[in-house]
């Protein structure tokens, strides 16, 4: 077993990427993810990799497009406003089916907003902030160890499905330190026969492209993408549940908020409230299954987010009207205390689940 080391979330992403075989990083500084950019600046030369500070987020995502198209593992990272700038590029990457990892360590918005933690880019990440019908695989870790594991997994998923994978965290996750272990991975770099890395004896040129001028062809391409997305939904949906079996109220939260929710839940349990927690680990594909299941047993759901209410829509879609779904959110970088969430639990149970 590897030794545990104490690491910041942001830096753990970087080291995990290196463990996953990522040797190309293109990024642009922005709080609260800058430590990751800086970590790559330090580490990439040490492992024979490429660190490049791009002139902008737009350039960085297009460098990723170029690198990914040649078949290498590649990553970029930013925070909310910078991720907005990448939306065209992400749509291109999805359209051209290139594997890459994009990290968003979210802060409060909208606009320049603030630099404290936020979760208000959920819609952007999961529904497609860029144009067209495409999906990112969105992973939402809630501890530094899970950051490590999911970062490695992100590269594998990206390669497997030829799809951008977004690691969605918030400023708190990026900044916090916890012990982590880097288990040796059995990652076998997949062979990418489609990569345009120079013909090198191949007889047919490879082309990386998202243009399909004939609507018939573009529709075919979209159908192909939708089939791929369906396969991802089928195979890659992940979540964690705690105390759900007997719960009257099920909390729903991801990332840092899920830990606050867990603390609140434990407090509630200790006072005999039957509270459980579903923590989506993949935000897209969203884990609808457990909601369908527990909508039969729980009396209500309570989504907790650092936003004005985004994931809660997916919860509502999953619960599909069978039970009430309540929402509690803080914005602007404010982080609710476990106590505040506990109070919401009590309140919701009274209002909705109590009958």
């Amino acid at each position: 077993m590897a030794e545990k080391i104490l690491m910041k979330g942001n830096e753990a992403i970087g080291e995990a990427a290196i463990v996953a075989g990522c040797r190309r990083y293109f990024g642009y500084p922005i709080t609260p993810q800058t430590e990751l950019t800086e970590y790559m600046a330090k580490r990439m030369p040490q492992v024979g990799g490429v660190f490049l500070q791009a002139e902008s987020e737009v350039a960085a995502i297009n460098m990723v497009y170029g690198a990914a198209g040649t078949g290498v593992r590649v990553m970029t990272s930013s925070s909310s406003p910078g991720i907005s700038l990448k939306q065209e590029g992400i749509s291109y990457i999805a359209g051209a089916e290139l594997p890459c990892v994009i990290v968003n360590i979210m802060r409060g918005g909208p606009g320049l907003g603030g630099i404290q933690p936020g979760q208000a880019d959920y819609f952007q990440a999961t529904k497609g902030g860029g144009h067209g019908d495409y999906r990112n695989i969105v992973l939402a870790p809630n501890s530094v160890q899970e950051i490590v594991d999911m970062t490695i997994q992100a590269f594998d998923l990206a390669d497997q499905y030829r799809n951008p994978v977004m690691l969605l965290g918030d400023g708190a996750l990026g900044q916090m330190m916890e012990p982590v272990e880097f288990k040796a991975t059995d990652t076998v770099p997949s062979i990418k026969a489609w990569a345009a890395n120079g013909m090198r004896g191949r007889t047919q040129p490879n082309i990386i492209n998202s243009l399909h001028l004939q609507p018939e062809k573009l529709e075919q391409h979209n159908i192909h993408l939708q089939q791929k997305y369906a396969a991802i939904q089928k195979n890659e949906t992940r979540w964690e549940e705690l105390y759900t079996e007997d719960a009257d109220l099920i909390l729903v939260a991801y990332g840092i908020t899920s830990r606050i929710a867990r603390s609140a839940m434990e407090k509630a349990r200790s006072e005999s409230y039957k509270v459980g927690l579903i923590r989506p680990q993949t935000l897209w594909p969203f884990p609808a299954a457990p909601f369908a299941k527990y909508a039969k047993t729980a009396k209500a759901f309570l989504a907790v987010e650092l936003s004005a209410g985004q994931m809660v829509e997916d919860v509502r879609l999953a619960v599909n009207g069978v039970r009430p779904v309540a929402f509690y959110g803080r914005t602007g970088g404010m982080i609710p205390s476990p106590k505040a969430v506990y109070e919401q639990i009590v309140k919701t149970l009274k209002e909705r689940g109590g009958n």
Partner: protein
Amino acid sequence: MTSEIIMAGFGGQGVMLIGQLLTYAGMLENKQVSWIPSYGPEMRGGTANCSVIVSDEPIGAPIVTEPTALVAMNLPSLDKFEPMVQPGGVIIINSSLIERTVARSDVKVYQIPANDVAAELGNSKVANMVVLGALIAATGTVNSQSVNKAFAKMFAQKPDLLEINERAIERGASYIKC
């Protein structure tokens, strides 16, 4: 047991570092640990603080809002965090810089002249280690050997610093014992 500690002071007083050392030490004792800074606009020049949790259980929220212990290296930090400390909790005050004490009677308060002790030890930079020594002695969160081991790991390239830091921790702890 779960220790939830806030450490706060001016930027430059080394509160982030002692927070990390404590976290590291907890990890060496195979406990669950987390450290999180408050970062932000006040970073530049203003006050800095971090949350440390050392626990036998998996850690929920890493941001401490009801600390079991507080280290206050300067007055604004004491003003800000004193009211949040849990009844029965511990407050370590750097009495070299903070003249007042605590009005609450439901907490244990220790006044440590950290800067003066550091000066005595011949290195003004170890004031933070002095309060760390006091903190672990007062709370038993980790033992001092673990902190020393953590220090040795984190500053593997600077082994000469080890001794003075160990002494600072001892001196800090001695304020609790007596």
